[in-house]
């Protein structure tokens, strides 16, 4: 549980770490990308609904209910990060696949969605959770 600002700070923190992870660790790229998405969505849920997810399943249900258009992207980040955590190394996606499919495409869609909603609310002065490389 946290305020929208606290979640935003965590998203930026995770994003900085994500950008520091070398290609030798595609599993950690997947995992950290998922947690960037978690913080962005928790920020939005806290901001728009004063809602704080109790667990992964609770968050997933809420995303389906409130933000259906990004649910498939979030599902990919969630599921691929589980795979990265619990499956052997030979199941891992390549760093190139993670960067293209998970970070650029899925996390990118979620970030754009969050930013567009914040702009509509007039709450954001700068992009959320994204640092210059």
């Amino acid at each position: 549980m946290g305020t929208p600002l606290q979640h935003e700070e965590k998203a930026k923190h995770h994003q900085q770490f994500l950008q520091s992870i070398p290609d030798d660790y595609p599993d950690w790229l997947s995992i950290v990308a998922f947690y960037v998405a978690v913080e962005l969505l928790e920020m939005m849920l806290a901001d728009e609904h004063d809602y704080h997810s109790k667990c992964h399943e609770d968050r997933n249900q809420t995303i389906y209910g409130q933000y259906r258009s990004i649910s498939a992207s979030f599902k990919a980040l969630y599921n691929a990060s589980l795979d990265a955590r619990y499956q052997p190394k030979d199941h891992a996606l390549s760093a190139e696949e993670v960067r293209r499919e998970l970070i650029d495409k899925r996390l990118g869609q979620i970030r754009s969605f969050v930013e567009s909603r914040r702009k509509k609310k007039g709450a954001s002065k700068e992009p959320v959770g994204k640092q210059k490389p």
Partner: protein
Amino acid sequence: MPSTRLSDKTKASARGPIQLSYNAGRVVVTPEDQDRFVLASQLAVAACQSAVANEKIAKMFGDEFLCPLHKWCLEHKTHVSQCYVPWERYGNCIKVFVVIRSKKFDFVLNDAISELEGQFIDAGWLCDILQITSGTPEELQAFFDPDNSLQVYADGHTTPARRKS
């Protein structure tokens, strides 16, 4: 009802996943697994259907959740090798594990899974459907216990765990 109670009840009489078959849109369970199926169905849907009578729950669960899930697996059989619904509790939702043929995460199937999940949620079945990359039975156990699960789809074969018992 905690999941351990079902495990205890069924431990002496049967082991392995409850294997389901399908006939004319209905779930068919072997007589030896019938009691386990009713109990497992109650556990799997208890969180979202607690007010409905137990046998009705099992029937609804079979007709409205397991049959469509099995049909979906058949439609995606080029990607899917097995599908399980454990009766352990995962928050307030039904967990589904779809074992895929690939050893790598399948992004195309992810979007199909997400669509299916949305259909179930819209119909009132709160669920979380996950794909698991192809692996050994031991690797599957990192995610769930097949012996405490409904086997919704399995390429027409029994699982290794069932054959051993």
